[in-house]
Structure formats: structure tokens, C-alpha cells
């Protein structure tokens, strides 16, 4: 009796149970990329492999008819189990997002093991070079792009996003998404933050905002992050002077005029001067001029960004959500068309509140 019990116990202890996934038997993918179109997707998975205590990034390439199929095919090429539960970044080719985005993301939402707090970025052209690039610069492929995107978010170029927020916005017809866009710098052979890709609903509009425009879009969204630097070449006394200001506070107020279909946006921006080599800020006159010039320039840039957004029918600012909540009668089901037809007028008021430690 005892002997039998001991044998059973041993078998159980040595074999483990149904749901066991031994960590040492899994290939932990931290960076995944996908490209191609429905029916002929191509996926890339980067995972670290340790040889003689030296970890090295391996790249697996697979094709398939659906994102899940791609993953299954990739699993065939790995000696351990392909495991995406430690995924940190997902890269998608710009050509792929011309089709509905959720088709690609569904597997990430449905599978309980996939994290949804990961970063997503759209790449210029194929994703392959972007993933291969990580072999040289890091031993942690996903972590590299995660840090890359996070630091760019801190500089108010990329919006603060993760997979879950993207998914949430895709289901909302009153707001659109702008996904980080990464470009390859051919000469330096490194990735470069190149603005954001505008989406209208599920699909990419084809328009990419450059970093500067994307910065103003984020200011319009009132999403200034740790560093939000405004830089202009100002003409002072017929002289070109570079001036940089850091946004300290930003106050936004939307006034909606339902009859005239007009939205007035009042911005009050408090700025600290970070660069001004002429050093005459204590002069009332210079101070005022700079404030005014900033005001005009920012207003012009705001108008430009809003114009692009309206042209692309991409309401990344979330005006739709605001109108749906506070002016539900004004909100139409086909919000994107209505958004494009609105008159949107930004009004900017800039105040310089600090000048650094110099006057």
C-alpha cells in the first residue's frame, strides 16, 4: 500500500501537471513583428538564446495566412516552445495597417497569456531590418524598442500608448488613434522616431505626421509629457535668433457652438525659456515680442495640424468623445465625416513664466 502511494507520488512529482510551462523550456519572445496582408502574413520573432553564458538574439521568420497561423508556423522552427508572454514590443509594417488593424491584434487580446501593456509601433517598410538591428545594439530586443518608444514619449513626440489603449480606441467611433512611426536611418543604421501614423477608424489614412506636427498634435490633446519643447527661429531686429521654450502648464478649453458647427479652442500655455542667446529678456519689450511671436507661431502650427487631421478624417484629439458626452444631440453616428466638416479655431495665449536661471 505504502509502496504504491510512494510510486504514485514520485510519478506525479517527476512529471508535473497539465498546465506546467517550465521557464527553461520556453523561448521567451520579447519583440515580434508582422507584415504582409490578409492571407499572406509574414511574422518575425526575436528571442534571446544563451550560449556559454553569452546571450544572443535569435530571429525566427515565418509565413502564414493569419497572425495566429504565422505564430504556429514560427513555433515549428524553434527547438523550445515559442512563448509570447514576455512580449514587450510589437512592430507592424506600414503597408499592413492599410487593412483593419484589429485583425492583427485579436490574438493578442484573446490569449490570456499575452500581455496587453506592450508598446506598438508602425515601421517604414518591412519590419525585418528593424528587428535585425537589435542584434547589434542590445541583448534584449523588445526592451530596446520599449525604451526607445518610452523615451520618445517623454519628449512629447509619441503619444503615451499601449496595446490595450489602442484596442480600446479602435472600438470607439468618437476617437481615432495615432501610432508611433519608426523610420530607418540608412546612414547611421539605427532606428529613428519619425512622427506618428494617423488612423481613421481601423485603417491607416496614409498620412504621417512628422515629429514636429505630432508634437503639436499632442499639445492640442493636452498630453504634454515630461519634456515638451517648443523651438522657433524668431526674427528679432532683423536677426534670426533661435528660441526654445519648455511648456510648463497647458490649459485647454473647448467652446462648442452647435449652430455654427464651430469649435473654439482656448489654449493658455505657460512657458519657460530654455534657450535665448541674446539675453535681453529683462527688457519688457523683448519679452513681449517673444511672447507674441510664440503665440502666432504656435497658433499657425496648431491650425496646420488640425487641417491635416480634418482632411484625413482622423479625430485623434478626442473631440468626438467630448461632444458625445456634453452635447449628445450634436453628435452624429458618422462622427468622422462630421469632424471633417467642423470649423475648428485654436486660440493661443502664451505666457513666459520663467527664464531659467538667467534673466
Amino acid at each position, binding site marked *: 500500500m505504502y509502496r504504491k502511494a510512494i510510486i504514485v507520488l514520485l510519478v506525479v512529482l517527476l512529471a508535473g501537471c497539465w*498546465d506546467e510551462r517550465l521557464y527553461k523550456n520556453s523561448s521567451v519572445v520579447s519583440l515580434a513583428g508582422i507584415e504582409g496582408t490578409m492571407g499572406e502574413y509574414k511574422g518575425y520573432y526575436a528571442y534571446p538564446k544563451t550560449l556559454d553564458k553569452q546571450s544572443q538574439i535569435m530571429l525566427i521568420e515565418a509565413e502564414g495566412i493569419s497572425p495566429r497561423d504565422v505564430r504556429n508556423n514560427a513555433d515549428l522552427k524553434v527547438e523550445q516552445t515559442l512563448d509570447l*508572454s514576455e512580449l514587450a514590443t510589437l512592430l507592424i509594417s506600414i503597408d499592413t495597417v492599410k487593412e483593419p488593424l484589429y485583425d492583427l491584434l485579436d490574438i493578442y487580446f484573446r490569449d*490570456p497569456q499575452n*500581455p496587453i*501593456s506592450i508598446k506598438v509601433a508602425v515601421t517604414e517598410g518591412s519590419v525585418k531590418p528593424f528587428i535585425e538591428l537589435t542584434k547589434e545594439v542590445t541583448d534584449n530586443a523588445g526592451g530596446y524598442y520599449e525604451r526607445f518608444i518610452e523615451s520618445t514619449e517623454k519628449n512629447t513626440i509619441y503619444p503615451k500608448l499601449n496595446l*490595450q489603449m489602442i484596442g*480600446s480606441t479602435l472600438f470607439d467611433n468618437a476617437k481615432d488613434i495615432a501610432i508611433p512611426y519608426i523610420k530607418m536611418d540608412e546612414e547611421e543604421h539605427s532606428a529613428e522616431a519619425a512622427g506618428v501614423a494617423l488612423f481613421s477608424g481601423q485603417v491607416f489614412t496614409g498620412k504621417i505626421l512628422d515629429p514636429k506636427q505630432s508634437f503639436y498634435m499632442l499639445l492640442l490633446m493636452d498630453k504634454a509629457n515630461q519634456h515638451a519643447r517648443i523651438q522657433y527661429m524668431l526674427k528679432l531686429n532683423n536677426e534670426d535668433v533661435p528660441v526654445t521654450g519648455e511648456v510648463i502648464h497647458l490649459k485647454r478649453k473647448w467652446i462648442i457652438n452647435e449652430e455654427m458647427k464651430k469649435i473654439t479652442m482656448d489654449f493658455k500655455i505657460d512657458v519657460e525659456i530654455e534657450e535665448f542667446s541674446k539675453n535681453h529678456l529683462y527688457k519688457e519689450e523683448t519679452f513681449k515680442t517673444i511672447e507674441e511671436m510664440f503665440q502666432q507661431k504656435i497658433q499657425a502650427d496648431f491650425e496646420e495640424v488640425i487641417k491635416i487631421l480634418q482632411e484625413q478624417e482622423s479625430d485623434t484629439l*478626442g473631440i468626438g*468623445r467630448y461632444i458625445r458626452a*456634453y452635447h449628445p444631440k450634436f453628435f452624429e453616428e458618422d462622427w468622422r465625416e462630421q469632424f471633417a466638416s467642423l470649423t475648428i479655431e485654436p486660440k493661443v495665449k502664451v505666457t513666459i513664466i520663467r527664464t531659467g536661471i538667467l534673466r
Partner: protein
Amino acid sequence: MNFSLSKGQFFLLLFFIETGIIYISFQTPLISESKNKAWVLFIVATILHYLVLLFFERYYRYFYLNTFFQWVYKVYWFLMIATFLAYMVYVLASWVLPQTPEWIIILFIVALSLYGNISRPETVINIGVMFIPLIFIFIIFLMLAVPDLTWTNLLPLEFNNSKEIIQGLIRSVFAFMGAEMYLIYRPFLQKELTLNYKPILIYQLVIFVFYLISVMFSQMFFTIEEIKLVPEPIIYILKSQEVTFVKRLDIFFVYIWLSWSIITVLIFNLTIRVVHFGIGKKGSKKAIVFYHILLAIIPLFFVKFKVIETMKNSFHYIILIFTFLLPILIILWNKWRGKTCIEKQ
């Protein structure tokens, strides 16, 4: 069954009965039926629940169950627990243990319930205490999601669709399932303790805040189209949060929810035991063991997506009848006849 409860224990029991199991999921049907005004409807439902509790407190003496109704309730609770067990297993299987056979998980949970229920009743009554800190942790980590919330999702409030309003109110009863046990445990409260509106109000406020956070968070975190796809919104919110030392909070919280729900199962079974064996009598262990064997078998037939869906779409009516309508009818009937429940000796 002979035991006495202090106020704290009494409300602790009620808290675990009402919040266990459904806390992570009742938001989905509520919000997808009543849209943006879900949270307002939920507040209304809570006020109604408070009134019902006050009514129960006032007339609990008249809640006398004859043998027929005792069996009705016993069968109702049994089926309730069986389906909830099935639901627990379903959630575990879809979130964390996809390969483990269902019967093993059910067997373990039922075995725990058996162990707890062949012990003294005080064991089941007090075990919840150890899980109070975990529930606080639950709330604290839920608060991490605050920066990701969209506050405009709470609006607009339009009250012109009466179907949505009624559906929303009815689906809110999920949150207060098991309130009839107030009547079962009330006679066990220590004699010299009286409950007036105040302790009930405090209890009601605690449970209200606890629930409202979950309703408002899921409403603000998800868009309405999205929440229709997410059956366990609270766990899903936790899944999307990341803290420095833990990447996947949801895994921990599924298990916290599990232990919390096991307590609820224990308490439900204690209730059946109390009603079956009556006050002052010692129950036979054989009956308890037999009951648990049944409980280990029945849920196996329910662990299917279709059944779980049906349960979600129809249970609120059953709960409405057994938790609120039937007790009120019994109380009124007994009051009219002038018959009172036997008070605790």
C-alpha cells in the same frame, strides 16, 4: 447548529456572500444593457437594496420557512453554487489553467468546502477575516488604472429609453445576490445587539463604494462596444496595468478572486447546512459529505461557454425572485397570518 454572531461577523458574512464570485464580471451585462447611464442606475439599485435590507431588518422575525420553502431554498442555493462553481472553473480555465481538467479543480474546491463545513460553524464564519487585506490590495491595484480612464465615458446620461433603464436595474441585482441570507443569519446575531439603520447604512456604504468603483472603472476604461467583448472587465483592467516588480497583475488577482470566491462557496454551503439542520441541532457528517459529493458532480455539466452565457443572461431574473420577491412575499404572508420565526434560544 448553534453559534452566535457579532455585528462585525454578521456583516462580514454578508459582504462575502454578496461580493464573492460575481465581483469581477457583473459589470459587463450591466453596462452593455444600460450603456453610459449604468453607474447612475447602479446607484439607484443600491438605494433600493438598502431599503430592502431595512425592510428585512424590521420584519426578519416573520421570515419563517416551512419545510416546502426550506427545500425550495436549499435546492435554489445548491443549483446556484453548482453554477457558480462551473463559472469559477470556466474563468480559471480561460485565464490561467487551460489544460487542467475541470473535475480536478472542482474536486479541490469542493474538498475545501467539505473540510470547512465539517468543522465548527465558527470556522466558516471567521475565515473571511484573513482575506480582507487582500480585498484592499485588490482596490489599491485597481487604482493604478486611474490615469488610463476616460472620464467622458460616464456621459451622456439620457433617460428616455425605459427598456434600457429597467434592464440596467434588473441586472444590478447580480451585485446583491444572496441578500436573502440576511434573514437566515439575522436570528443568530447576539441577542443584546440591535441593528438600526446606521450599521446597515455603513455596511451598505462600504459595499456600495466597493461596487461603484468597479462599475465606474469598467465603464471609463472600456468603450461600450469593447466591454461587450470583455466578460471579466476587472481582471482585464488589471491585466493592462504594469507595476515595476510585477508585469502581470491579473494572474495574482485571478487567484485572489478565487480564494475570495472559495470563501463564498463555503458560506453558501454553511447556509444550506444551517437551514437543513436547524437551530440548536447538531448535523450529521454523512449528510454533509453526501451533499458535497453531489456538488462535485453537478457543476461538471455546466462548464461550457453556452451554459455560462445562458446563466449570465438569465440569472438576474432568478436572483430577483429568490433574493427579493420571495422573501418579501413570505414575510408579508406570515405577518398577515401573525406567525413569527422561532427566535434563537
